[in-house]
């Protein structure tokens, strides 16, 4: 057990953190609304090398594992970065994994460097030829998704942020035609479903990292406000009604962070628990991000409700990202199914691989 980041991991986190702190200010996040995409920020992440981190070194990437990627998703989420890091990283891992993805990966590596291309995974199978509400669907040049028995990759011009249906979290979602553009079948039949499930699990873990970052920052904003805001002559953070609830949140934020990291680590280790941990990590981070943002917003009093303060940005995105994949109960059932396929004790909380 070693919960410290590796040296390389820390170095990249520092670099990305510096970039985000400087570039991705709350004003920048606001300016990207309602489309939810800032091309310059994305270009910046490409130039830093993190957008394509999951690509093989031979393709100009860093051969980054899921943990490396998730550790970056966390500060990206903390800054509510309007750029499709999670989506692109998910697809690049998939392309690196399936044989039929090699040519696409080669090509994408090029356009990523030249044009800051965007890739994404349609989270739900196509219905009547349409992938509905695809994350980053408005700006993705490459969309991968399950269409019937096939896992397909669509190389097609994105509809642009003008196509984004107005939504709570200003997410650049869009519907995508499952037959548009250049269509490559990556896998078929069971292999397609297996590859799709694995990609979804990657997305879950990276999104859990993103949401953990959001939760942590929302908590920090709440703590800062509670420390400086006075009522009745004392900081409101000195009232148990405030401090004890923030203590609960901080506990859950720590838990969410540990859980996404364990899930990502287990993927890199090739452990069979990965699927269970990915499902658990996404659900717990979703719950935690919402709670953190809600509590923090509430403790702002009337100001929390104004658009001028930043906490509403977190509040709106927490719910939006938590609902990106599915309603809550089906996610629980999916997780229960995986747990019950497993061998009992190892899958329900003893840990230790």
């Amino acid at each position, binding site marked *: 057990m070693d919960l410290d980041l590796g040296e390389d991991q820390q170095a990249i986190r520092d670099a990305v953190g510096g970039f985000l702190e400087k570039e991705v200010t709350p004003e920048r996040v606001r300016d990207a609304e309602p489309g939810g995409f800032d091309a310059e920020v994305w270009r910046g992440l490409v130039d830093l090398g993190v957008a394509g981190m999951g690509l093989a070194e031979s393709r100009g990437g860093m051969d980054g594992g899921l943990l490396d990627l998730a550790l970056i998703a966390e500060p990206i989420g903390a800054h509510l970065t309007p750029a499709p890091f999670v989506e692109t990283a998910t697809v690049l891992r998939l392309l690196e994994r399936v044989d039929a993805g090699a040519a696409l990966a080669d090509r994408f590596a090029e356009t990523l460097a030249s044009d800051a291309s965007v890739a994404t995974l349609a989270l739900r199978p196509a219905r009547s030829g349409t992938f509905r509400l695809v994350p980053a669907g408005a700006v993705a040049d490459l969309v991968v998704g399950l269409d019937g028995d096939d896992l397909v990759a669509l190389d097609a011009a994105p509809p642009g942020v003008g196509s984004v249906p107005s939504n709570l979290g200003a997410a650049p979602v869009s519907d995508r035609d499952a037959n548009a553009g250049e269509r490559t079948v990556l896998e078929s039949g069971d292999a397609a479903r297996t590859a799709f499930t694995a990609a979804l699990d990657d997305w879950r873990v990276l999104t859990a990292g993103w949401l953990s970052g959001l939760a942590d920052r929302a908590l920090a904003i709440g703590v800062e406000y509670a420390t400086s805001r006075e009522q009745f002559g004392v900081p409101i953070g000195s009232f148990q009604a405030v401090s004890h609830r923030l203590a609960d949140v901080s506990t859950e934020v720590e838990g969410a962070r540990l859980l996404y990291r364990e899930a990502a680590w287990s993927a890199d280790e090739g452990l069979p628990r990965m699927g269970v941990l990915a499902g658990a990590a996404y659900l717990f981070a979703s719950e935690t991000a919402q709670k953190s943002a809600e509590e923090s917003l509430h403790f702002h009093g009337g100001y929390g409700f104004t658009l001028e303060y930043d906490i509403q940005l977190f509040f709106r995105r927490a719910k939006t990202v938590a609902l990106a994949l599915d309603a809550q*109960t089906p996610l629980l059932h999916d997780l229960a199914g995986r747990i019950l396929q497993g061998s009992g004790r190892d899958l329900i909380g003893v840990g230790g691989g």
Partner: protein
Amino acid sequence: MDFNTGERGELFRREVREFFAEHLTDEVRQRVRETGTVHDWKLHRALGEKGWLAASWPVEYGGQEREASEMAAFYEEAALAGAPFDGLLTTLIIANTIRHVGSDEQKREIIPPILRGEVLVALGYSEPGSGSDVASVRMRAVRDGDEWVIDGEKVFTTLAHESQYVILLTRTDPEVSKHAGLTMFLVPLDLPGIEIRPIHTLGGERTNSTFYAGVRVHDRWRVGEVNGGWDVMGVALTFERTVTGGKETVRLLERFVEWAREATDADGRPRLEEAPVREAIARTAIRNEVSYLLAQRANWVAASGGLPGVEGSQSRLFYTTRFQRTASELMDVIGPEAVLDHNAEGAPASGHIEHAHRHSQVGTIYGGTSEIQRGIIARRGLKLPSAR
């Protein structure tokens, strides 16, 4: 023991329902949604013509002496219809306050146009530095002969941009303890030195910051005694607590059930058949009924001549916290499309539930935070020792 809201209430309910069906057009609703100004002059004047702006008042003051059951029915139907009545609420709080503690001149000048639906009054209590701690206001009012000179800033002065007056809680004696040096003024908003700037909110509603620089107000606009502002505030708060008691959660559940009847899952089955949908309906219905009963209890205490302090706080605490929880849970049940708002085509329930999720966040803050309500219940209701 009788839970009937009474025949008069039901008769009036039907009348009110018909009124809103006629006067509350989709055009009005849309304008309200787009501007965030939760008031409509035409509708407001139509209410005035009906004599309903202060329908519970004595006839001599221009009221209709309607009983508590009728007033409850009125507010319930207004909320169920989604009527924009923020202006009505704040104005009536002040009209009631003036009626009880205002001067005869103030009553003559203010109340008739208010009841005709021609005048709105905004509330100017909160300041950047004072929220739950209302009495800590810093706005200064300094006497200068027959006039007072007011300097300072207020926040959350909702509808100031549509109102003719604002009621201001000011500090007139900074030397004494914080509750003792306050004075209340009713200030015409067209006086020189007043500036209004919009504040936009998470719920889409507009409120305002208002700035007062050397605003000169005649002493006849003072409400209550000099340095007696906290008593006036006490009167005003009483009316605030009894007026509120929303039915937004009922509308929310109705819209959710409508959605569930129409929406289908990937296999074409109505989503109303899904277990989580049905569980959410049951949970919400229970909360709604308890909310309704707690509000009725507070109204009943008031109608019986009591001051529903603890009862009002319990009603408000339960209703506002459950409204938040319900809106969030209904979204969780709906799934990915739940985040689409009213501007998006195909948004579930036309974005009503998504809006409720945002809008409900203010409920646990205005009119006293949930923490303030819990404090009142603990101290006055349970007689627990003062909070530390």
